[in-house]
């Protein structure tokens, strides 16, 4: 189809700079999007995929400008529709490495239908969902993840919509991968993006991203050095859920109920705690509920970061390709076969 260079050369070692386009990022100073862009550029060279085989698609919103700033192939689409566009591309060209940049409004409001259906189909896409709990590009209206009570230009008396829980929605939609990261923790974000890229299937990464203009400090509880340790727990496979400044708090499962315990006072050892297992959908579902407001308000449970859930499941494009291979096991039918059809008749 194309005149690809067929001579074999040692590929040059690429760096983050090789993935930067010539366009200047036009996000506000201090916007969390800059940090996410930087980590995406950092992680790209680690994937071993040439830039021409990477495509980043997006919808509409601040985060959806991201493709313009990457030196890969990219399409800035229409509001909420990046996921079906990416699905069409991936189904048609399974060999490409396809990313989607989207936001809480783009993915969960106008694109909500595509969000749930893409997750259940599981095409191999890496979805980076920038969650700033606000509409930025339209200047400060509440989003489907805004907290109850948040006062915005369209909720002057406070938000009364119950917010979406991205993790619970992803797992409930049959998603095969969910992870959460934070714009301010670059190194960790980079590691999560890499995990997402390596997962075969739809990888959903929710990034808590600060909007300094319209919803500043929405995630401050997980950011400030004073609070961070007590309000966050970082998930590691096969490791107990331990957190706190002194690493002396843990989480135990009492039946289906997660309970915070004090390792010093309660006479417990780490082996008594909940051990993280990202292949356990039931535990992932409970982790997803850690984000509910009540938990935070009462300082009961810390907010989890990391890979909640990762399941090996056939991708949509692999399943379709397998069906086509099966149909073509006796060779690809010809144009002549097509035009003649299966019920032609001869008039003599």
């Amino acid at each position, binding site marked *: 189809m194309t005149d690809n*260079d067929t001579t074999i050369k040692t590929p040059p070692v690429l760096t983050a700079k090789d993935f930067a386009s010539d366009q200047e990022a036009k996000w506000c100073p201090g916007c969390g999007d800059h940090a996410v862009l930087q980590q995406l550029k950092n992680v790209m060279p680690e994937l071993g995929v040439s830039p021409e085989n990477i495509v980043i698609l997006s919808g509409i919103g601040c985060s959806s400008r991201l493709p313009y700033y990457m030196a890969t192939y990219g399409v800035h*689409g229409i509001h909420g529709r990046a996921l079906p566009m990416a699905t069409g591309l991936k189904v048609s*060209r399974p060999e490409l490495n396809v990313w989607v940049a989207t936001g809480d409004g783009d993915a969960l409001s106008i694109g909500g239908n595509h969000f749930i259906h893409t997750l259940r189909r599981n095409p191999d896409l890496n979805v980076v969902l920038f969650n700033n709990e606000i509409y930025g590009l339209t200047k400060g209206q509440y989003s489907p993840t805004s907290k109850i009570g948040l006062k915005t230009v369209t909720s002057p008396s406070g938000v009364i919509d119950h917010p979406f829980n991205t993790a619970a929605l992803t797992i409930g939609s049959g998603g095969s991968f969910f992870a959460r990261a934070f714009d301010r923790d670059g190194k960790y974000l980079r590691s999560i993006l890499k995990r997402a890229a390596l997962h075969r299937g739809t990888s959903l990464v929710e990034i808590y991203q600060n909007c300094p203009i319209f919803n500043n400090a929405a995630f401050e509880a997980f950011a400030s050095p004073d609070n961070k340790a007590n309000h966050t727990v970082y998930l590691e496979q096969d490791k107990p859920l331990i957190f706190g400044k002194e690493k002396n708090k843990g989480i135990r499962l009492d039946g289906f109920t997660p309970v915070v315990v004090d390792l010093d006072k309660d006479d417990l050892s780490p082996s008594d705690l909940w051990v993280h297992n990202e292949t356990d959908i039931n535990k992932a579902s409970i982790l997803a509920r850690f984000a509910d407001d009540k938990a935070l308000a009462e300082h009961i449970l810390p907010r989890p970061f990391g890979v909640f859930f990762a399941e090996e499941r056939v991708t949509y494009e692999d399943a379709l390709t397998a069906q*086509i291979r099966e*149909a073509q096991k006796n060779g*690809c039918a010809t144009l002549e076969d*097509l*035009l003649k*059809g299966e019920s032609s008749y001869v008039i*003599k």
Partner: protein
Amino acid sequence: MTDTKKTTRQVNVTSKTSVSVLFAGDSGDGMQLTGTQFANTVAVHGTELNTFPNFPSEIRAPAGTIAGVSGFQLQFSSKPVYTPGARFDVMVAMNSAALKANLKDLHRGGIIIAGTEGFDEKNLKLAGYPEGANPLEDGTLANYIVFPVPVLQLTREALRESGLSSKEIDRCKNMFVLGLLYWLYTLPLEGTIETLQAKFQKNIQMADANIKAMKAGYFFGDETELFANLGRFDIAPQKQHGTYRRVTGNEACAIALTAAAKKSGLELFLGSYPITPATEVLQTLAKKKKYGVKTFQAEDEIAGIVSSIGAAYGGALAATNTSGPGLALKTEALGLAVILEVPLVVINVQRGGPSTGLPTKPEQSDLFMALYGRHGEAPLPVIAARSPVDCFYTTYEAARIAVEHMTPVICLSDGYLALSSEPWKVESPDNLAEIKPRFQPARKPEDPPYLPYKRDDRLVRSWAIPGTKGLEHRIGGLEKQNETGNVSHDPENHELMTKLRAEKIARIADNIPLQSIDNGPLKGDILVLGWGSSYGAIKTAVEEALEEGLSVAHAHLRYIHPFPKNLGEILGNFTKVLIPEMNSGQLIHIIRDTFLIAPVGYSKVQGVPFNEMEILTKITDLIKEIQS
């Protein structure tokens, strides 16, 4: 072989040129299957043929009611036919509702074959006949030739020893009727026997019962005194030698997309969402995996088109199919396809609107939406198919224009073409136009930068697909700078880009055939200008008008945007231009606006196609008007 010309008794066989038959009954009576089988037999026999199924939008409307009537009309003939017939000569009415719903379209003096069990007290009441009235007995059908046949009773008798349940036996009654019609038109049973044997491969008992019921119907015709005076009929086969297949419009669209992919060397991707009456395009393509076709049943109409845009960006021949409400949902994405300048075929199978409207009935009311139904100025080519077979050629042409001009193309069909069928002489691959995608070749680091929106002399940009080294670029819905494709809010640039996008579509007129006159003189009193599925009715009406010596011609538009370059010249050669449309007048606006002439409109917005008599009457009236 059953020798259909020989009968046990000497019944006269009369030759006829053409006959239009309607099979009508309750939705559950199997009339679509009966009609389809009859059509297959007639096609293989070698007569010309045109079919039209007409059924309610409910899967099972209340049995016995007018709402539940399902019909299958076909015309077969020794000469070319373009419609299922303005009126039918023969009506099979399996119940009283079927008779009541269709009697107005039966020729005076026409034949009614009535299944008497469908005319019992209960059925008559359900059909809304007054108490005590039975059209088979009360003389109200005196102007027709009525044959009351106890179809159910005779089927039961024939299958008494079949071992089937009484419910299963009763379901074979349509085959009895089919057999009777085969006898009446001296048609062979073998084709249907083979079909039934194949269909019920795993249930030989059922196959045998259906065949037996059909033969019982056939021999009933032979043995009863009922048809002694009428006799039998013979429509001589006239088809040219060759290999044929019968296709519906929707099947033809699906075959065309696959053919265009094969011919162009592209992979076909169809993103689609089920909607009546367009769904068979998706269904047909879902079965074409051995041709490498990829179908994606999306979660909604929007995802259907957007997934196709993604596939088109990746280098596939991408298409989506829908009907009015779906096209409305796709309009935002069409704007994206226009500004991205990627190839995309959108097949819109029109139905009665607005809203859910008449989902199973045809209309030509989406022309304005196809031409103008987008935000901003977003011109794109619009072409329309005229017949079931033409759905192939028009869809193929849509794919050619889309790929060669890097643009979305709307291809209009409608519910009439979608489900109607006609024989199609199997096309040779060599006769199909070449389709040449213009992929941008890989770029070396020392080469000048790649300019995604640099255009050739037709103003077409190149197709730079992911995976091609050195062409990494970003495009999107935001206005772009000329040539570089970078985001630009520059006022002058936006105006330039708007003009370039429009001019690019206008120049497609250089790459399409000139308009021809389908029939009639190049100059004269009246030009009937049609588009879409009214072709058959106009064609037949103009043929008759010409036979009557009227000064009339027929031109039928495939290319509605842009118009063929010579259209204005053709229109200028006639005193009056008559534009029949199954809408309140849409093409007429565009013709008036483009050519500053005053055509005469003729609207029909009833969810049923034009028939040739209506058009002929209109032509005759208009001629009188001109002459007075």
